[in-house]
């Protein structure tokens, strides 16, 4: 505490910066979020439950969480392959590809949405060949999953890259010298070491997918009960002037994402590093 006291005496500006930080944070973030909770609390338990558990809402949860889980799983697998390739191998164009991994962060979600729809709809470059095979991508849950894979990919790759770069080659050499083949070394030495980072990437990608709106609405078709994600349902409640209903569903989504955030923090505590990217 004596060090703390000394610091406070020497450097100026604690009062004003701290005061500004707390005021700005409260006005922009905390008070509006509190308004959301208060609004949905105003419904009362019975009406709240009715608002968040009607069949159309439950169908949207199933679709949103289901597609998000599938997308995060695909991202965990391919994100691992991409990160491994970028960290361990050399090939032409590697630096450009590495930089392009962040494209889904930089590209506005609405642009991603219309671009994916253009490619995978029935007249698109890929859609025209997939449709005769009986695979409809645009305006189905497959399309929604595809959009979620697109926006979630950088999370897995960017969390795994530093973890893979930090791997000590010595432990792999030790495993090899003890007679392990490459596959055994991978499953017993490499995978356990990077598992926290892989799970963090998975959870970040999942958290982003659950709340995603812009890239999904163009490709999803937005049919109630079938291709309507929860974010879109909140907007349609709002357009029908059911603000309390919209607030109630939002609270459910917020609790889901806070829960995920909490587990991500726990995982990062385990992995000993803070994710530096941006959502």
């Amino acid at each position: 505490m004596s060090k703390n006291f000394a610091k406070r005496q020497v450097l100026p500006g604690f009062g004003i910066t701290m005061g500004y930080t707390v005021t700005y944070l409260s006005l922009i973030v905390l008070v509006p979020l509190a308004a959301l909770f208060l609004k949905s609390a105003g419904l009362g338990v019975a009406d709240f439950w009715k608002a968040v558990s009607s069949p159309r809402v439950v169908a949207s949860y199933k679709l949103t969480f289901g597609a998000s889980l599938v997308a995060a799983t695909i991202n965990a697998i391919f994100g691992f392959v991409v990160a491994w390739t970028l960290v361990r191998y050399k090939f032409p164009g590697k630096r450009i590809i590495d930089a392009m991994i962040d494209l889904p962060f930089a590209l506005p979600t609405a642009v991603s949405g219309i671009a994916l729809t253009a490619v995978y709809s029935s007249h698109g470059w890929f859609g025209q060949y997939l449709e005769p095979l009986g695979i409809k991508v645009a305006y189905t849950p497959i399309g929604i999953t595809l959009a979620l894979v697109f926006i979630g990919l950088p999370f897995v790759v960017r969390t795994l890259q530093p973890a893979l770069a930090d791997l000590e080659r010595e432990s792999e050499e030790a495993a090899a010298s003890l007679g392990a083949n490459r596959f055994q070394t991978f499953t017993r030495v490499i995978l356990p070491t990077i598992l926290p980072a892989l799970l963090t990437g998975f959870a970040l990608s999942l958290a982003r997918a659950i709340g995603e709106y812009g890239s999904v609405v163009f490709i999803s078709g937005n049919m109630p009960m079938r291709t309507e994600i929860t974010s879109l349902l909140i907007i349609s409640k709002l357009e029908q002037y059911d603000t309390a209903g919209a607030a109630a569903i939002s609270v459910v989504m917020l609790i889901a994402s806070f829960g995920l955030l909490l587990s991500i923090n726990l995982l990062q505590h385990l992995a000993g590093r803070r994710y530096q990217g941006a959502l």
Partner: protein
Amino acid sequence: MNASTLPTTLESPESWQVAGPQLRTATEESTWVRWLLVGSTLTFLTLVLFVPLAAIFAEALRKGWAAYFASFNNPNFWSAVKLSFLATGISVPANLIFGVAASWAIAKFDFRGKSLLITLIDLPFAVSPVVSGLIYVLLFGMTGWLGPWLSSHNIQIIFAVPGIVLATIFVTFPFVARELIPLMQEQGSEEEQAAVSLGANGWQTFFRVTLPNVKWALLYGVILSTARAMGEFGAVSVVSGHIRGKTNTLPLHIEVLYNEYNFVAAFAVASLLTLLALVTLVLKTTLEWRIQRDLEEAAKSE
């Protein structure tokens, strides 16, 4: 196997080349596994990233350059450009000032509840875009807490420019702060203390000592916020009301054009935002190694 093919190649990155003529060591994958992994990476990224990226420009130019440029000859496009610049121009500086203040308080002083404060600053990243817009509707909308008071004073926030600015501030809220806080914590406050003990005041200390140390991270945060502010869709969509020529930002303008089946114009406007995204990526990549260097220097001097 002679001695020269043994571990000398282990440490060097050259030994990780996809098709190396040299002997495989025990910590490398066989050639076909490497080709398989590199092949999967390239195929996956092509299907998910590169082809959609190319499609934006192909669709924009489907009817030629004349039709492409005609898309920009539209008053609604220009009002969307103005509104996007306005929202970005207000939200990025506002969050920059906040980020600097917050990181000064958090990194240079000790106090109780610091980690809670950092978590609260990150909170907007955990809130989905649509909910980010909704919270302001609940506060300032006609049925919101302050709605009746605002309308009796003729102040409109929702379905008007102030709501769009607020939503943009919310979604870009943590970017600058979360870049600055870890770096300034790593750098400590010894240099600032020296400056103050030599007679510098607070502003001089900040502008001559702190700012040069964190300028790249600060710029990085500004670039990320700018990209997000220009491209935000969900949050802004909820508060905007989609009034043409008045409350449409560029992404909302794209949505309107797309829903009217005016695909060339929609993709033409999208291509501009895509170019902005590509410029963002170049700047971001360049800045990353500079920040890495700052962090390494800070770690070394400790």
